[in-house]
């Protein structure tokens, strides 16, 4: 158990060299589980590289990379499968860890016939009820009160499930953050607020979001503990999340975790960070790379070897190729599905629209003009 740090202290378990820091004890995690966590970190890195290449080739319309922030995804490793994830949009590792398949992931990016959400949302906005991972919403902060709502529902239903909600430091400026945190505090809802402070909200730097000394200090106002964790230290995140879940299940309410990390690339494929930040800044991050650090730790425990690394990367590379080949060229969603799921049942006016549409020739003309 890591000693709970004071608000402005940073909780760490391992340092950049992969050594256990003085006074900390690594969480009790089985070797196989440690390897699974590392596998998932590598998977995110490899998937991101490949998908970004597809985006730059013009095959994908949009993509968001997680480079630098992968460790935060693995907070879910400290939770039960029945706990709920309320993602922001940069947590594919949390989904992969829970078994989201590459084929499904890639089909969602293409929005085609194999997309689990039927081509309804833009790339990266996944939705997986089957692994308790809710639909990603584009408006920033919108998922925060919903996570509190899930947590309150668990209490009403007499279940001991918890919710983890991911959001960036920019989202703490929204009203939704305030109400979500406030309700959670008032009702002692079993929810974990994982604030990923990656320094940037698109081009707006973190110091433009608050005058408070730390984001974690906001927790005080909501009557919950706020802790700061080295967000590039996957073991520190695991421990902080496990502790928060334990508190939540014991009926002691929510916890706010500020994970300090860094967004190495742009906000999305549509963003060019070189116009607003020092191009050398990402280089300084190399030191803190969460993968390298955890790799060194595992190496010292004889759980990682360069051969395994090579095998893992090859495995994911091949798996991506296989999955991509299988789904990338599938047809788009059936036009017939256009009116489905707006309501539980198909209302008469939509049935009429559908009949009319299906009788028309399929349009080839674009709705935008350059």
């Amino acid at each position, binding site marked *: 158990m890591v000693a709970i740090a004071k608000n402005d202290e940073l909780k760490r378990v391992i340092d950049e060299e992969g050594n256990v820091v003085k006074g900390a004890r690594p969480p009790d995690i089985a070797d196989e589980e440690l390897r699974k966590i590392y596998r998932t970190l590598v998977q995110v890195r490899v998937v991101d590289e490949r998908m970004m290449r597809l985006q730059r080739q013009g095959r994908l319309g949009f993509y968001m990379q997680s480079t630098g922030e992968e460790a935060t995804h693995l907070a879910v490793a400290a939770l039960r499968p029945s706990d*709920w994830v*309320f993602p922001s949009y940069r947590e594919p590792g949390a989904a992969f860890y829970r078994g989201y398949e590459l084929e499904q992931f890639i089909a969602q990016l293409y929005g085609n016939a194999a*997309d*689990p*959400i*039927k081509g*309804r*949302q833009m790339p990266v*906005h996944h*939705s*997986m*009820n*089957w692994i308790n991972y*809710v*639909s990603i*919403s*584009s*408006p920033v902060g*919108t998922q*925060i*009160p*919903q*996570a*509190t*709502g*899930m*947590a*309150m*529902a*668990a*209490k*009403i*239903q007499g279940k001991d499930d918890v*919710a983890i909600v991911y959001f960036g430091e920019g989202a703490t400026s929204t*009203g*939704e953050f*305030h*109400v*979500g945190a*406030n*309700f959670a505090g*008032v*009702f002692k809802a079993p929810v974990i607020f994982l604030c990923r402070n990656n320094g940037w909200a698109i081009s707006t730097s973190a110091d433009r979001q608050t005058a408070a000394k730390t984001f974690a200090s906001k927790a005080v106002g909501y009557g919950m503990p706020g802790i700061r964790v080295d967000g590039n230290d996957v073991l520190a995140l695991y421990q902080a999340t496990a502790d928060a879940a334990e508190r939540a299940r014991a009926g002691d309410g929510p916890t706010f975790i500020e994970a300090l990390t860094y967004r190495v690339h742009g906000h999305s494929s549509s963003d060019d960070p070189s116009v607003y930040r020092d191009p050398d800044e990402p280089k300084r991050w190399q030191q803190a790379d969460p993968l390298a650090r955890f790799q060194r730790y595992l190496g010292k425990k004889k759980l990682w070897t360069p051969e395994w690394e090579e095998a893992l990367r090859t495995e994911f590379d091949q798996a991506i190729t296989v999955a991509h080949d299988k789904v990338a060229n599938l047809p788009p969603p059936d036009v017939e599905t256009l009116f*489905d*799921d*707006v*309501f*539980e049942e198909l*209302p*008469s*006016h939509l049935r009429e629209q559908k009949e009319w549409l299906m009788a028309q020739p399929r349009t080839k003309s674009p709705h935008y003009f350059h």
Partner: protein
Amino acid sequence: MPSMTYREALNQALAEEMERDPTVYLMGEEVGHYQGAYKVSQGLLARFGEKRVIDAPIAECGFAGIGVGSAMVGLRPVIEFMTWNFSLVAIDQIVNNAAKIRQMSGGQFAIPIVFRGPSGAAAQVGAQHSQALESYYVHIPGLKVVAPSTPADAKGLLKASIRDDNPVVFMENETLYSTQGEVPAGEHLVPLGRGDVKRVGTHCTIVAWGKAVHTGLAAAKLLAAEGIELEVVDPRTLRPLDEELIFESVKKTGRLVVVQESWPVASFGVDIAYRVQRACMDELDAPVEVVSSADVPMPYARNLELEVLPSADDVVAAVRRALYLV
């Protein structure tokens, strides 16, 4: 049949549905210990306890979002807005989330939620308390919109709305809470999408919902003295809309006046006028009239407020235009 107020009918619907289904809960400002700002939730806290009748901190976007999140995992929340005017600070949760999550998730997540509270003007409560916002919400695919005009409809529609697996915007009216009417006891359900003819007539059709139904009925009384018989059709739900009932009536009378408390521009009444002219062109004997509120934010002064709201006299004048009696 027992007689009760619109308020009591809503209360009965809530109590019966909470009794019937343990996943139903009520949340909002003042719904518990205060028994509801308009006493709609009278007695529910004592009966169902604090886990199911939840006094929320004052933040509409908070409890709207709480409701959405809890609906995703299997509860059936009833979220009370003290007035629909305040729903505007929660509109991201209603429009971007409740209305869209089923579709955006490819059908994985249902949001069986009811957002309810009074809509429209009361008496001298100014611009930010007097808005009839049905046209805002009826615009959004994925939402159902309900506006009962009588105690019986209030009960039957609220029960049906709570059982519906779609998000429902349920618009009551402050000036109707104390109105009295007969309400069937026990299991009384009014299916969403089925309208009701509140008065049978032959000369002109009035389509109105919520409080405006009573404006239409008042106009009918005035005109009956002259031998003009209005047929008052209350669709009761705006989405889904019982178009057939409206078209049937218009085909019979050949004339239509829509009465709404909405502002006129891009409003639901105008949408009905569009639908009717497409479906009933051959039977229409006059252009469709739409009587709305004046296109201004509601003033406080009593005399000005009266000029803004659609009145029975405004309806009479519109009927006369439709009958070429001017």
